[in-house]
């Protein structure tokens, strides 16, 4: 178990380096949220998600829907690492004609991308549709949907929350990136969300609230969430925006923006150092 966790942590730091390099090379993008979500998405993609990079359309694959689409660099890094498309694509992010759009796009047929996001608040409804289809077809795939905390300001998120509860979508697991930051500042200052867990509970969801950088908590939460029956589940993952890059951590100004040359070098140095403090690695 410990060896596995260390390998996952190393993987997360490797993915973070790709995130920083993608945004640096693109000269724009949203590094903060992506870095904060690296741990929870690494645990999901490298330990729990059933998928086949050689067959992205495998009907029984688990679905991963990224509703907070601006954090896509971490998803793209994972998909490249898994072999959904060549790593070279990462460095063309956001450029005209590139496969990798500024926000995830099915229109551009990015392998592994299930939903075109970018406009906030829509993905959880889409995920409900995918989960309903799974129930109708009696397929046992699971639907994981990442949403941001600020997406809980969009009313549509609560429409989807009602729907998932009403239709007992226990094949749906939402992952809430609770980093307390939105573009203009801390969520509680811009448009307060607390008590956020109480809201989800009142909407009938099963709640798992964890430190999104504690791997034991992450693994336990996914294991428990996958067991729950009869209602939708949400993992409220308390993440640190910019996690792993000292000058980005907790600073909402890194919601979007590309690092300078010097910042890029420092970030990569810090991320390498953190990775090498883990014992061993795992394959892509």
């Amino acid at each position, binding site marked *: 178990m410990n060896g596995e966790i260390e390998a996952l942590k190393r993987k997360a730091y490797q993915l973070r380096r790709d995130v920083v390099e993608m945004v640096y090379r693109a000269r724009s993008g949203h590094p903060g949220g992506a870095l904060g979500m690296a741990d929870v998405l690494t645990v999901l993609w490298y330990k729990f998600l059933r998928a086949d990079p050689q067959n992205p359309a495998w009907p029984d694959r688990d679905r991963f829907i990224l509703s907070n689409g601006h954090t896509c660099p971490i998803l793209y890094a994972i998909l490249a690492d898994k072999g959904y498309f060549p790593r070279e694509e990462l460095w063309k992010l956001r450029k005209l004609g590139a496969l990798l759009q500024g926000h995830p796009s099915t229109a551009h047929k990015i392998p592994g991308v299930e939903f075109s996001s970018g406009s906030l*608040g829509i993905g959880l409804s889409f995920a*409900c*549709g995918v989960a309903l289809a799974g129930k109708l077809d009696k397929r046992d795939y699971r639907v994981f949907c990442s949403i941001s905390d600020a997406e809980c300001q969009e009313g*549509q998120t609560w429409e989807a929350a*009602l729907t998932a509860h009403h239709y007992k979508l226990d094949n749906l697991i939402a992952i809430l990136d609770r980093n307390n930051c939105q573009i203009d500042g801390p969520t509680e200052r811009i448009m307060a969300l607390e008590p956020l867990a109480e809201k989800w509970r009142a909407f009938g969801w099963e709640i798992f609230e964890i430190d999104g950088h504690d791997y034991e908590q992450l693994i336990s939460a996914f294991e428990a969430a996958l067991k729950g029956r009869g209602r939708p589940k949400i993992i409220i993952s308390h993440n640190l925006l910019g996690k792993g890059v000292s000058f980005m951590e907790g600073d909402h100004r890194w919601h979007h923006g590309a690092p300078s040359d010097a910042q890029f070098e420092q970030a990569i140095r810090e991320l390498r150092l953190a990775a090498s403090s883990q014992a061993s690695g795992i394959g892509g």
Partner: protein
Amino acid sequence: MELKLGEKASLRQAFGEVLVELGEKDERIVVLTADLAGSTNTDLFAKRFPERFFNLGITEANMMALAAGLAMSGKKPFVSTFAIFAAGKPWEQVRQAIAYQSAPVRIVATHAGLTVGEDGASHQMLEDINNIRVLPNMDVIVPADAVETKRVIHALKDHDANPVYVRLARAPFPVVFDDSYEFEFGRAKVLRQGEEVTIFACGLMVHQALRAAEILAAQGISAEVVNVSTIKPLDLETVIDSVAKTGAAVTAEEHQVIGGLGSAIAEALGEHWPGRRASPLERVGVRDRFGQSGSAEALIEHYGLTPEGIAQAAIRALERKRRR
């Protein structure tokens, strides 16, 4: 439902009935509504196939994105609600989740236009053709009567490559087609040949246009009537050919004159008109005003969407043509 030429028949009932037929043949068909199962007649499908019917309560934005999720998981979703709640409230979700992804969702909106009647402006959607026509990947169909509605809904069964919006109404419309009528997606149909002016119409206004042509004939004016049931993609060839022959165009729609059929024809004539002489255009529709409460008949009269109103527009077009 039996459909008799000239008698009024409900488009939404035709829709509801065909939907059940389609449901029998293809179990990938699922139906969604937002607390309007009865009003959209999707309750017929709900009764027959309860496990493939999803009432989402009053959550239109959610419904549209959810339908996209079903479509991209191999289902053939039909989504039905009032036009204001289909092309209005969830417009951006239709754009992002359905149009941009080209998710083959069939949106069948009822209660479009003034003929909603007594509920008034909030429910009288006069901007839906405008809102959907502008979206890439979306097709827009406006059937003229219950017969065409049946044909259209049947055709949607295999409309799998991209999403489509179908505009129906609350009020029953006079039946203008006999049972031999065939709907051809993307084709406008000349229903009455004429020489001096072309009337392009959709929806209820096809019936009104046919009556307008009779009024004009009584005055010695030969009007051609074209049913533009596929608003997008527009049948440029039929449109241009007809005006090339008649030299004057009138459009008639139960919609704002901005952004709907009138605009589509104006764009087509502007960009594709091959003629030397100018062809005047007159648009009949709601002229940049909101609706209001009243009976369907009273409103059609009040806003001038009558055979007489169309005939007058045709005469104006002819006068402009002759002045030149």
